């Protein structure tokens, strides 16, 4: 083997050794933690832990910047505590340290990790549109929460955990000529704030019977 070949091999080995050394060396990594209650809704006051050690709380904009030390490729356990009214997932997240560089060579980029603090309660806004139903009291889980106005419109809201079932009832006891009486609707709160529109038609007894009869006839024709 010629001297040139030997020198090439030695040079390559030296280069490899130097690379190996740099990846194993401790270095700092810029990490930005973003805490959200819902997608896009940032949350302040959440405490972040890296491998069990607290590194600080998110600001009011829901962000926390930190400089973590470790080796490239090292895995870190990320946990967080949520403010009151929010719950953190039970499983911790794992973060693998990596260096990123911008394509415009403006320097290294911070890693960003999003953590979730799920609200314990969800907001449900109800909008009632009662046709021929002005002045009808509306009950939520048996409790009177609103009364329809002159146009049959009523607004009310409720808080509850995701999956909670809510019963909305129209109390027509004061207007016995109206049908249907004590109409009840059941709603399940989703894992997000939501608006429910309740459309309900009322009619006097006679009209109600006629419409029922007519409906029956149509069914027979079909």
């Amino acid at each position, binding site marked *: 083997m010629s001297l040139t070949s030997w020198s090439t091999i030695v040079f390559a080995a030296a280069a490899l050794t130097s690379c190996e050394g740099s990846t194993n060396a401790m270095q700092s990594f810029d990490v930005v933690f973003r805490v959200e209650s819902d997608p896009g809704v940032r949350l302040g006051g959440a405490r972040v832990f890296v491998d069990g050690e607290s590194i600080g709380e998110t600001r009011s904009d829901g962000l926390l910047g930190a400089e973590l030390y470790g080796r490239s490729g090292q895995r870190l356990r990320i946990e967080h505590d949520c403010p009151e009214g929010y719950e953190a997932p039970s499983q911790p997240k794992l973060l693998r340290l990596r260096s990123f560089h911008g394509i415009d060579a403006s320097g290294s980029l911070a890693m960003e990790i999003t953590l979730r603090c799920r609200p314990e309660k969800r907001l449900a*806004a109800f909008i009632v549109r009662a046709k021929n139903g002005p002045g009808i009291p509306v009950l939520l889980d048996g409790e009177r929460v*609103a009364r329809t106005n002159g146009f049959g419109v009523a607004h009310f809201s409720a808080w509850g955990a995701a999956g909670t079932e809510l019963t909305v009832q129209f109390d027509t006891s004061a207007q016995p000529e109206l049908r249907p009486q004590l109409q009840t609707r059941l709603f399940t709160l989703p894992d997000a704030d939501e608006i429910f529109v309740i459309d309900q038609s009322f009619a006097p007894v006679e009209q109600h019977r006629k419409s029922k009869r007519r409906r029956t006839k149509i069914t027979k024709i079909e």
Partner: protein
Amino acid sequence: MRLPATMVIDDRDDEKTLVDARFAVPDHTPREEPQARWRGASAWLRRRRRRIAEAGAVLALVLGLGAVAYQQSREVDALRERIDAMKRDRSGSFVGGLARSSSSAPPPVGAEATSNPSSGEVTQSERESLERRGAMLIGSNDFSCALPHYRMLTELFPQQRVFRDVVTVLEAKLRRSGSVEPASGSCP
């Protein structure tokens, strides 16, 4: 003794027509002059008909443009006044337009209704109409227009928690869907 009627021959009459003096015109000159003038004027008008028509058209155009410009300037002034009024009143023109004498306003009804100074300026029927419109916007899934409407309701009835809750949910829904709030005035 009765004298026969005298026959007079007018010197200026080339045809030497005999004219009974009783029917003779004392002097023809004053009548003929205006007629001649009129004939001259009408001939002049006929000659310059085209030019007069052009001048009339130009004049009409100028007057029309002037009227339009005047109308526009009045509208601009009115608009400026409205903008100034809106700047003075933070709650905006639509809220201001609803303002009425508080003495005539009946108290609001509803489970969560409570009296407050702003809502006292809105009559019951206006409030019901506003609530109905809000329900209609949400019922038709027009959340981006419903949001400013319910913000207005929140301003009018700050103690009505339910309107604030609706605003909260609408904001969350629009954020989730990535929708942009409409510019003021773009909603029906």
